[in-house]
């Protein structure tokens, strides 16, 4: 298989307080694995000049304290670590998490459109969406929103032409080849095909988000009855269903 991404990582300054290490400019598990591997290495290295790491699809943002180091010094330090990473690739086996979803109806107002767009039945869309394991590429947009990929081509669908002002919390959507879950009510243009009763974000928890980059997610179709049962049981202890 062809290796994706740049031949070597690219470093760019982000103002005087951060830098970004880019591994490629496309969505691919290979590139994202490198991001996550560097993220883990740097977290463990406990470099005191580094204040925060933000892994995304294809790059790692590193926020640092400019009182303690310079861009050039820090790049050198990171490059040494990044080199070891290429020689001995870090195994980033994410956790596997099943997310229960009720598809269609009031919970998934765009399921019919997605089916019609691809000349499929709604059941086929559900089957295609829930059969695959998705990688959590990054968390962004709103607190706790996981960007998952990639959905089968048969159900990849463009965003809504006019975004909704309010998408309910728990909504599961498709945007091109990405799929994602709205942790809270937010405006959004993704095609909403279902809803999960579980909570993905709770600022009272540590960590506050259920998922993290590198996790593997599989959607599990549930009935309305199951939806309500899970919803009630996750009210108090949001993340307990994990164990």
């Amino acid at each position, binding site marked *: 298989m062809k290796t994706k991404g740049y031949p070597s990582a690219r470093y760019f300054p982000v103002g*005087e307080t951060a830098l970004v290490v880019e591994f490629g400019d496309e969505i691919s598990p290979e590139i994202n694995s490198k991001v996550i591997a560097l993220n883990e290495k740097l977290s463990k290295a406990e470099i005191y000049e580094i204040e925060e790491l933000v892994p995304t699809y294809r790059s790692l943002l590193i926020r640092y304290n400019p009182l303690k180091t310079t861009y050039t010094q820090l790049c050198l330090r990171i490059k040494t670590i990044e080199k070891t990473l290429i020689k001995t690739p870090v195994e980033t086996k994410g956790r596997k998490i099943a997310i229960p979803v009720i598809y269609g109806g009031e919970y998934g107002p765009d399921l019919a459109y997605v089916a019609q767009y691809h000349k499929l039945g709604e059941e086929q869309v559900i089957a295609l969406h829930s059969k695959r394991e998705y990688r959590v590429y990054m968390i962004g947009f709103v607190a706790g929103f996981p960007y998952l990929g990639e959905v089968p081509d048969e159900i990849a669908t463009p965003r809504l032409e006019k975004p909704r002002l309010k998408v309910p919390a728990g909504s599961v959507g498709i945007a091109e080849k990405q799929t994602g879950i709205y942790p809270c009510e937010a405006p959004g243009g993704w095609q909403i095909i279902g809803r999960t009763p579980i909570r993905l974000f709770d600022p009272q928890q540590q960590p506050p988000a259920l998922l993290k980059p590198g996790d593997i997610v599989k959607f599990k179709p549930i009935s309305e009855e199951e939806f309500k049962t899970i919803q009630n049981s996750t009210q108090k202890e949001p993340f307990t269903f994990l164990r």
Partner: protein
Amino acid sequence: MKVFQVLKSGFLTTVQDLGRYGYLKYGVPISGAMDTFSLVTANFLVKNDPGAACLEATLIGPELQALTDTQIAITGGGASPKINGQNVPMWRTLKVQEGDVISSEKIKSGCRFYLSIRGGINTPLILGSRSTYVRGKFGGINGRPLKAGDIIECFDVHPVEKAYALPEELTPEFKSPFTAHVVLGPQKSMFTKEGIKIFLSSQYKVTIEADRMGYRLEGPKIEHKANVEIVSDAILPGAVQVPKNGQPILIMRDAQTTGGYPKIATVIAPDVSLLGQAKPDDIIVFSEISLRQARERFIKFYKLLSSVRKILK
């Protein structure tokens, strides 16, 4: 300790401290005071820790009634503050007695003012910060702006012995046009030479779409090369994104943590603090500096805050 009752909320008044750090990877923005200098100075004036939580008022300030004797300071945008209708100075320690009413006029210079209270505002720490993140509905008072009837609680500490004032030469002026020093990138290579030249030589006006998340700016169109989108990556306050229409968006403290528009430049941290005082119709001019100069300016800003602390000791 109950210190104030809110009589009027003002246009948008929130509890803010220095911000919430370490949670960008979970999609949680940094939040915190839009104008760091004014928040920190307001705290020094009442001998609080630099990062104690204060009120951040926007354009039209709140009306507060004191429930106990305390000390406050008001800094930031010029708002002609008053105690019981009498004008009081900004950038100074002010004594407040039980029953006093604090009010202000519509902000004339700048966009936001900060009201510190001796001891600091005591709301629950959420992910290490008391800052209100309105969109996420957490932090501050129940994750929302102040409303009439709210009670502001503070940590109970002994009063400050004397009154302090920030020397005039250190008092910032918030006047349009604002100069924002930038380091180009991280996606400068996605713009044409002409596009970058236009960005650095034009005046950009803050539009009405300006809030704690960011400011949409209006001015000469900035030209991309071929692509107008990138695979989403992380964004920090100060990032200048340019979407397809060529009109820049300045990212501020409550913005989403990832985005798919290329970033032509990043405003240095001290100037992000300054731009926290820009309001609709104000003009921003972007000026390129080297990374070395950017770091020097950061260190200078840090030293300035330290010297403010020493002066107010």
